[in-house]
């Protein structure tokens, strides 16, 4: 029971390995991927003494449980959730020592959507194109966790686990997304741009790591016809034929053929990753 690895006891609805992703390959059709809430990923890494690019686990809504085979320092952050070791409550958002063979559980999220679990040394799954991130669009990186999956851990870092409290932004009651209009805002009517700026949308349950889908008034196109495929960025607000804006998240396709009406400011996207279905969404355009 001394090898540096962990076994998955309860994989949860969707738990993936994530680091800072694999930028630089979009021209080959490879999505950037990476932790959807990069601030939470970086904070839990810091709490256990890891570099910011160490791989962590990203859960979705109902957490996960793992059994490390060696004693290891862990930290659970991101979406707030009960954290237990062999059933006994321990701190959330702080380093916790887990004995070899004990079960660490991140419970269902009570606020927010995605919790992050860091292990001292990081999850050492095989990197693909320089990243250990699971990319759900193209299937690169480690497969989503299943019960019984065994993942290796890296060597314990020399840095001591960071003590003390760190500030955690709460999940949004209302998701406010600052957007810059374009590049294809001229494909939409003036009325549609007014709708985007003034009407309330909601986070759709069909959202995933590829995109945050919204429910709300459709945006009417001024230009009919097809847009030749063009490169897509993180935060692009793409408008498919049904007119409901989709905000591209980390696993977004690298090119797309629907017009992008606006692009969300990058620092607003961590909140988008933590917004549960039904959360009100407001777009605030700037020129």
């Amino acid at each position, binding site marked *: 029971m001394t090898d540096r690895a962990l076994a998955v006891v309860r994989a949860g609805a969707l738990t993936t390995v994530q680091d800072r992703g694999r930028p630089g390959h979009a021209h080959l059709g490879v999505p950037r991927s990476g932790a959807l809430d990069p601030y939470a990923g970086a904070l839990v890494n810091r709490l256990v003494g890891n570099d910011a690019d160490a791989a962590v686990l990203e859960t979705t809504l109902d957490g996960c449980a793992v059994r490390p085979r060696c004693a290891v320092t862990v930290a659970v952050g991101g979406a707030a959730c009960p954290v237990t070791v062999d059933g006994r409550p321990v701190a959330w958002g702080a380093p916790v020592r887990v004995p070899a063979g004990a079960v660490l559980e991140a419970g269902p999220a009570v606020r927010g959507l995605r919790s992050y679990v860091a292990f001292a040394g990081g999850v050492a799954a095989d990197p693909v194109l320089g990243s250990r991130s699971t990319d759900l669009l193209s299937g690169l990186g480690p497969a989503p966790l299943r019960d019984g999956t065994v993942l290796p851990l890296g060597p314990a870092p020399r840095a001591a686990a960071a003590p003390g409290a760190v500030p955690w932004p709460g999940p949004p009651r209302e998701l406010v997304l600052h957007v*810059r209009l374009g590049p294809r805002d001229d494909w939409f009517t003036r009325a549609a741009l007014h709708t985007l700026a003034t009407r309330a949308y909601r986070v759709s349950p069909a959202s995933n790591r590829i995109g945050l889908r919204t429910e709300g008034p459709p945006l009417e196109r001024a230009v009919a016809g097809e847009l030749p495929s*063009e490169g*897509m960025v993180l935060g692009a607000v793409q408008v498919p034929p049904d007119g409901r804006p989709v905000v591209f998240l980390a696993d977004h396709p690298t090119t797309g053929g629907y017009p992008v009406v606006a692009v969300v400011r990058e620092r607003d996207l961590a909140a988008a990753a933590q917004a549960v279905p039904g959360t009100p969404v407001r777009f605030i355009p700037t020129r």
Partner: protein
Amino acid sequence: MRTLPVGDRALLVELGSGEETEAFHAELLRRRAAGRLPAVTEIVPAARTVLLDGVEDPGRLAALIAGWNVAPLHARVEPAVEIPVRYDGPDLEEVAALWGVTPREVARVHAATEFRVAFCGFAPGFGYLTGLPARYEVPRRATPRTSVPPGSVAMAGPYTGVYPRSSPGGWQLIGTTDAVLWDPAREPAALLAPGTRVRFVPRDVRGR
């Protein structure tokens, strides 16, 4: 040519044609290789645009680009990538009917064409290949297939492509290849990158 801002850290350069887009993309790569391009994280060519993402100052880069003299596209010196193909796809007859020729003639024309990877996308390793004259454009299938086998050589609009892995798809399937389009364990992982020249080399349906 015009440039459109994309958020705070990217720029979309829109060009007049596919050829201009490929020439502009080649110019970007030349300038980057020579250290004469401000740092960018991604250069993503597409049908009529090139996206520059991860740019510190998109406004400054746009002004810089406006002053460029873009060299016309010329043939590359490196040899074309050869992709062995069996022209045995389930839509070969339909493509032949659309062209008004025999299936054998479709194979002959396709194999005699020198293609170029205009851009990649859809899936890692999937290249959009141009090179066929406009009269050979074919529409997508009215109903996409739920599963296209890996290695399918396919056509849609002005493009030819090879499916790197099994996926849904609406392109017309004209053939099959054993070439591995994408292998993350290989360097480079992608057989085809933007700008790569490609030739399809017919193989007998029975094997060689």
